[in-house]
């Protein structure tokens, strides 16, 4: 499995397997002794079984509504958001909602069509790990995460927009 980039630019081994949505009629097949990410609605359907299990997290697709997990986010060790195409910007809003609206505290990961030039936006919106598409040069991630030293807006990384920081 490809390595994972952390928000500080560090690179570590990936421990999480993404389990695709099962075809209709098939059941969710969770490999033993692995840490897995399952579709969020399936986790919710089987919440009693999975809640508190440190080896089972969830993933959202870009058209999913994170509201479904609003009351349970911190029962999860990891939430991933899939970018089916890097130009699909819905994942940024999903991330901010998870962090700022639902108070999600644990690891938030970007998966899918994750490229270098979007990493800093992802970081600002609350993602703290990134599964870079394997053909991209992971050594360039640290620079891409830090193209800018600050932003004009408040986001997940700072409560204070620049107009409030200027005033202080």
């Amino acid at each position, binding site marked *: 499995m490809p390595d994972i980039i952390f928000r500080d630019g560090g690179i570590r081994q990936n421990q999480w397997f993404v389990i695709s949505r099962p075809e209709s009629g098939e059941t969710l097949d969770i490999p033993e002794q692995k840490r897995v990410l399952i579709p969020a609605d399936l986790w919710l359907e089987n919440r009693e079984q999975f809640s508190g299990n440190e080896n089972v997290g969830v993933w959202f697709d870009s058209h999913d509504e994170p509201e479904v997990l609003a009351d349970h986010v911190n029962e999860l060790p990891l939430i991933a958001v899939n970018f089916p195409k890097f130009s699909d910007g819905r994942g*940024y809003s999903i991330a901010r909602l998870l962090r700022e609206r639902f108070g999600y505290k644990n690891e938030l990961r970007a998966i899918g069509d994750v490229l270098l*030039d979007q990493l*800093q936006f992802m970081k600002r919106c609350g993602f703290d790990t990134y599964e870079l598409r394997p053909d991209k040069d992971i050594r360039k991630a640290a620079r891409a995460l830090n193209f800018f030293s600050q932003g004009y*807006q408040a986001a997940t990384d700072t409560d204070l927009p620049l107009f409030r920081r200027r005033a202080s």
Partner: protein
Amino acid sequence: MYVYDEHDRQMAAERVAQFRDQTERALAGELAEDEFLPLRLQNGLYVQRLAPMLRICVPYGMLRSVQLRRLARITRDYDKGYAHFTTRQNVQLNWPNLEDVPDILAELAEVEMHANQTSGNCIRNTTTDQFAGVQSDELTDPRPYCEIIRQWSTFHPEFAYLPRKFKVAVNASEKTDRAAIRVHDIGLQIVRNDAGELGFRVHVGGGLGRTPMVAPVIREFLPELDLLTYLEAVLRVYNRYGRRDNKFKARIKILVKALTPEGFAEKVEAEWAHIKDSPSRLTPEAIERIQAYFTEPAYAALDNATDLLARQRFENRGFDQWLQHNVDVHKKPGYAIVSLTMKKTGTPPGDVTDRQLEQIADLADEYSFGEVRVTHQQNVVLADVRQDRLLELWEQLGPMGFGTANLNTLTDIICCPGGDFCALANAKSIPVADAIQRRFDNLDFLYDLGEIDLNISGCMNACGHHHVGNIGVLGVDKKGQEFYQVSLGGASQHDATIGKILGPSFARDDMPDVIAKIIDVYVNKRTDEESFLDTYRRVGIDPFKERVYA
């Protein structure tokens, strides 16, 4: 006008370094074409029919003389010595080399300019009235709000990959709407509520393009301090629910229509309720800080130069015509607002040479406190000219090519670059404008016709705003041949209306005749004081149809 502080400067420099890095990776083959595409677009760079095109941002149309001179130098050093004023108050270069663009951006950053978000599916340059701050009927100067929106929207981490482009316009005048806010994704009309508090009436979901729509009101009154949180709520609803499956249905207008304006407003209010009291809520101090950059220049205490001007007009008919058409009333006694028309026949509308850019800079320094404004009609405004120096100014304009006294007349044509330059265009637009200007070369006749907006777009994307022209011309492609569809009755101000299509399209050579027939009908049908639009609204489209297709 706004001046960068250390934060703005730092981010501008970081942006240039970022794009340099991205360009190097693109040239080295590390970025696929579709991956580089949104990055270059958000730095203003299109790849066009003949060469790349760089769209440089002119925030809400304001330029200082030092910036004009830098633009002139850039067109000389990196381009073919001319530039183009666009219909969204920006400036375009038509011939830069892709490899040079990071250097051009660095040169721009030195004079506090950039090309951020002038293209791509993101929040674009916020536009406003070119007479902001100098007209007497506005509630307050709209430009500080435009600057506040500029900062908020610049590199916004959540809204860089929207379903489609997103344009905001602000207007503060009660009588006029030179910013055409009702045909924008968000149009903000500055208003006071019954309690006398300042705020915005919020229109969402207007736009031109393939599905032209006039924006409905989704909130009658938004208190000014709530501006950014409310915009954030609108954008978040759009980012999450706007269509991404079909680029022709991806603008916010389609979402507003699908949900109905009431349904859309409800969704926005629900989102806003969560964030309205967050630290992103503006503070009076934050607004005052920006307003302090838009204070009045050092006006002299003057009386209106009524007698002097009357004498000068009597002695000089050309000056009289120019004064009547290209000069507007200023809020300060003794001053005037001057529009320099970039519409000289023989030059594509909005095009200026490097030398002309420098001449405009010199005029700004000499006559207007070193600042100019670019208009969405592709002209340039000197906003603060002393009335007693108008004659002296006018005498210089003719030789420079800015003196054509045709502002707001039939030949003050709004025109996109069209098929001569643009890869998207179905047809050329500049030669059509040129042929019409040549046909209507008699100024007295133009004045007699009064105000007529003639807008030409080379394709559906409607950069020439053809839908809201009193007469609109749209280039269409029929089996590889260029044809032109005509629409009538469009309007862009407070009475914003989408024009109605006249009928089957015409060959390019026929266009001057077609326009002449339309004008004929107006001249025959009008009553004393009726404008073209008034007559059209009274008699309808049929008399025009009958004459043109007779």
